[in-house]
């Protein structure tokens, strides 16, 4: 049983320092708040996804096919029964005559009562009920806002006009992110312009079922699974959708959890730094206690109790704050979520967050606390006794280190999609923390070793503060550096990704794409483009086909024994030409531009990656099925394709002379100089050829920008926890050093230093700390952005020089500002007052 004296002494000893101790340990508050918020939200989200899984699909079962269901399939559908609803989805231009604007959208033509589960939310609300019967259209909310379309205006899709019944606020089975990629317009299938389907090959046919007879859907699809595969019909069940959302959301939530954990760790470092100084300031008291007969365990416990009590207080505060922050999480994530997540407190998350907060506080505080055991009672007689410098030789220190390292690794692995990635987190974290720590040690060493003794007094004092006893160099370099690293990485990735898209602007590359042009339309459409004095940068035919067999083995046989991959099953859009483009080069074999009319086997060229996915090489044979007609080919060459380049790129290129008589459509690339030209071209083309789709790539760029800004908002939201923790650690560290520096400042004042000199010394110290922390953090962020560019985005590294320079200025500025604000009042203290108090 713990000695009650320990608690009494802990309470008494904390007098006069409680506010300070609370501030030291408050660096845990934000991290715990983030953890509790994310974890509580995550548990609610999973619950909602489980509860509303039917809404996620909108039906009990959905069949999906890239072509209309055949007769056998229709017979099967008939026998399955239940309530049925059909949807046809395809991309098409939607033209809004009110503002003479058009946009490529995903048209969803509905027949029946889809969605069976969940409600369509529209503005006006009545539109959700009447639109289908009234023959109206429901239009994506963002598009309506962008084009200022009002209910009652009309939209033309293909040859037909539809009155806009209302805007879609929420559609079961869809999330907001989908509408960024391709905004939706819902129309009644009964009024669909069928010419849009007859020639197009991009439509997706869906059939949704609702069963009210409690049927076992999983068993049903298992029974007819083989048949569905033969018919090339995919299916989705409620269970599958739920699992897939569950998996995706769990990964998202785990990722956010890891980000929150970084804030907790940073807080832990703040705690360790603060407790280190706290203990050093208690040396005399500890020595007296030891002298009066307190055992090592007792003295250690006095401070451990104080730390844990404050850790508990800050964890409870953090957890309460987390509940508040939880309300903000859905705001940050709403675009990515399929369902509304109501606010509920997850007690489990609350408990786990608090436990983790106390655990991390205790664990990190142990690093400095273990040195208490080595404080000699002899300090009461001599103030020069060496203590606390031999931590690395203390086995207990290493045990604490082992426990902390194991804890961090366990948490990371438990919250990563795979153990490998979890260990990756740990390695990355260790690398970042390690580099910052080495930098801090390096600064301390270099400042001492190369001390510029000829510098002015102010600069020498400021610089010397970096290595004097009780300096805050380690803690501040770590916390500030980590903040700079996170922000720098974020800006760097954003810059790298946007730079890729801006290339097309800078290099006079195509920025407008016309596709779905039928063979009889290509000449007149080309004339329209030229008539607008716009260049035709490329005009290529495209034929849709699927693989029938690879080296004699049929794809259906591969599907049957599950050896077929995505590359075998996908639909290929291929072109034919007798030349290579700028964005591709042959890496193996010989590119053959024209087919030999006497050779029935066409020599094709494959992208090297798809060849790898198909497991084929030069000389292997592929047979394609083009609308029922089988075309044998052999792989004549492999190409390396620069997919990021704006233009038309293909997995498979046929030689000229094989596909010319097969149904095809054309894609034409052009370049407009401004939005007005682009809109003019769209109007002219759609006026005469409504089935032709026109994509303005600058619009794609802005869409990408929107999507990225949403993602980056989430990342910034999470990063803000770490940054805020960093600021608290900074304030804590400054307050700690204020206590250290107070006596010194007063002595300086007594000896004749002016207020401005005292403040300038502090400014120099914080300036050095802020600058080196920012420099190291930003250098690390360059490495991290480079790694992301090379391994994740497969693109060239483009550092954000402007943001880097701004951060390099901002971090030291912020450090100095916080430092000086917290140091105010030092000079005003009377020397006698301070010297007497600190005796």
């Amino acid at each position, binding site marked *: 049983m713990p000695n009650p004296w320990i608690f009494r002494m802990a309470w*008494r000893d904390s007098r006069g320092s409680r506010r300070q101790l609370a501030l030291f340990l408050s660096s845990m508050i934000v991290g715990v708040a983030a953890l509790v918020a994310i974890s509580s939200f995550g548990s609610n989200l999973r619950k909602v996804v489980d509860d509303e899984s039917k809404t996620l699909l909108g039906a009990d079962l959905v069949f999906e096919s890239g072509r209309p269901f055949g007769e056998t399939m229709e017979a099967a559908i008939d026998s399955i029964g239940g309530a049925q609803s059909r949807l046809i989805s395809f991309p098409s231009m939607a033209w809004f005559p009110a503002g003479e604007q058009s946009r490529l959208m995903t048209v969803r033509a509905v027949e029946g009562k889809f969605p069976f589960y969940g409600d369509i939310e529209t503005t006006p609300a009545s539109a959700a009920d009447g639109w289908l019967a009234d023959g109206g259209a429901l239009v994506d909310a963002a598009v309506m806002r962008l084009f200022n379309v009002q209910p009652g205006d009309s939209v033309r899709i293909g040859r037909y006009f539809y009155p806009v019944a209302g805007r879609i606020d929420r559609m079961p089975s869809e999330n907001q992110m989908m509408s960024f990629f391709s905004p939706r317009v819902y129309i009644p299938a009964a009024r669909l312009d069928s010419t849009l389907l007859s020639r197009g090959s991009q439509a997706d046919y869906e059939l949704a079922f609702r069963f009210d007879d409690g049927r076992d859907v999983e068993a049903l699809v298992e029974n007819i699974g083989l048949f569905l595969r033969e018919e090339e019909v995919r299916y989705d069940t409620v269970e599958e959708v739920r699992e897939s959302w569950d998996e995706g959301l769990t990964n998202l939530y785990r990722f956010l959890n890891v980000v929150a954990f970084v804030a907790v760790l940073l807080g832990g470092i703040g705690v360790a730094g603060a407790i280190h100084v706290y203990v050093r300031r208690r040396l005399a008291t500890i020595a*007296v*206690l030891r*002298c009066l*007969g*307190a*055992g*090592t365990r007792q003295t250690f416990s006095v401070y451990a109790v104080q730390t844990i009590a404050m850790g508990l207080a800050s964890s409870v505060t953090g957890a309460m704050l987390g509940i508040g922050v939880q309300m903000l999480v859905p705001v940050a994530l709403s675009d990515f979520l399929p369902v509304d997540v109501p606010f509920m407190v997850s007690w489990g998350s609350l408990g786990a967050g608090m436990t983790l907060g106390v655990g991390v506080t205790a664990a990190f505080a142990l690093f400095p606390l273990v040195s208490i055991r080595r404080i000699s009672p002899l300090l*009461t007689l001599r103030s020069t006794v060496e203590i606390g410098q031999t931590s690395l030789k203390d086995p207990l220190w290493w045990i604490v280190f082992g426990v902390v390292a194991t804890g961090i690794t366990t948490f990371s692995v438990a919250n990563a999609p795979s153990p490998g990635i979890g260990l990756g987190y740990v390695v990355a974290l260790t690398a970042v923390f390690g580099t910052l720590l080495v930098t801090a040690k390096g600064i301390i060493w270099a400042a001492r070793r190369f001390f510029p003794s000829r510098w002015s007094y102010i600069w020498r004092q400021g610089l010397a503060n970096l290595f004097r006893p009780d300096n805050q160099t380690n803690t501040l370099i770590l916390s500030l550096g980590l903040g700079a690293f996170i922000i720098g990485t974020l800006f760097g990735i954003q810059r790298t990704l946007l730079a890729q898209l801006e290339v097309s602007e800078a290099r006079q590359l195509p920025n407008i794409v016309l596709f779905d042009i039928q063979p009889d339309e290509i000449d007149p459409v080309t004339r329209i483009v030229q008539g607008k004095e716009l260049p035709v940068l490329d005009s290529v035919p495209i034929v849709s086909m699927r693989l029938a067999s690879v080296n004699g083995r049929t794809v259906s046989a591969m599907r049957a024994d599950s050896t077929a991959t995505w590359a075998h099953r996908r639909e290929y859009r291929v072109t034919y030409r007798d030349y290579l483009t700028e964005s591709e080069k042959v890496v193996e074999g010989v590119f053959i531009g024209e087919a030999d009319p006497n050779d029935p086997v066409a020599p094709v060229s494959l992208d090297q990656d798809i060849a790898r996915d198909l497991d084929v090489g030069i000389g292997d044979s592929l047979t394609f099925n083009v609308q029922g007609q089988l075309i044998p080919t052999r792989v004549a060459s492999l190409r390396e394709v620069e997919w990021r380049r704006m233009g038309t790129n293909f997995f498979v290129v046929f030689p000229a002379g094989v596909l010319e008589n097969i149904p095809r459509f054309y894609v034409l690339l052009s370049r407009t100089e401004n939005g007005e030209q682009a809109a003019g071209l769209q109007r002219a083309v759609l006026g005469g050829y409504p089935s032709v789709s026109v994509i303005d790539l600058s619009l794609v760029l802005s869409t990408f920008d929107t999507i990225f800004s949403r993602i980056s908002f989430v990342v910034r939201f999470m990063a803000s926890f770490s940054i805020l923790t960093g600021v608290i650690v900074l304030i804590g560290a400054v307050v700690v050093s204020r206590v250290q520096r107070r006596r010194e400042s007063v002595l300086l004042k007594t000896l004749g230093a002016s207020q401005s000199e005292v403040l300038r010394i502090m400014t120099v110290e914080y300036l050095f700390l802020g600058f080196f922390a920012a420099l190291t953090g930003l250098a690390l962020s360059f490495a991290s952005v480079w790694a992301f560019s090379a391994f994740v985005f497969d693109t060239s590294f483009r550092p954000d020089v402007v943001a880097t320079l701004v951060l390099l200025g901002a971090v030291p500025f912020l450090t100095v500002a916080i430092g000086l604000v917290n140091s105010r009042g030092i000079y005003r203290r009377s020397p006698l007052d301070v010297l007497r*108090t600190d005796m």
Partner: protein
Amino acid sequence: MASILSVRNLTKTYQSGNRLLTVLHDVSFDLRRGETCAVVGPSGSGKTTLLGLCAGLDRATSGSVDLSGERLGAMSEDALARLRNREVGFIFQTFQLIPTLTALENVMVPAELRGQKGPRERASELLDQVGLGERMSHYPAQLSGGEQQRVSIARAFVNRPAMLFADEPTGNLDTDTGATIEELVFEINETAGTALLLVTHNHELAQRTGRIIRLRGGNIVSDTLTRA
């Protein structure tokens, strides 16, 4: 009378840069129960080192110290702490009060550590005895130097120690206050029958003890009885 403190061939060396510095050299003496003794000598003669070793605050390089019949060198840090708590009282030049504890709480610490019943009553009684009955709830920063040293004296006697170690108890005080404190130490010590080992520069103070050990360069140069 039996020895409360027995010091035999005590040597203490420190590593100072590359060379060994011998601060105490082969020192031996005994102190009987209730005996008072002053250790005097110039700065650097090894007085404080000797006090630290005798009180079990430091470890000897060679030789032995027996306090209340226990060999200090063989004891663990925690066992030494328990022995100090039970048998030893301290008075320091710089008072060494815990700044976050009131006068009363400071005095109570040794008794509380020992787990004694009624430490508050005993501490109050001692504070009354040293004339601080009205200032028990004051913190050290609110007390004058002399008052702080009186609290320290009360604390030294709270566990009725057999041995009192005092390191320049009047060194930080003005002459008048120093004299008052001096009176108080000897008065309580005599009443309690505690053995006293006092380290001081002050010859008058040393003369009030029954015996004076003179140190020079880490060696005992004389060990004489006084008329006190």
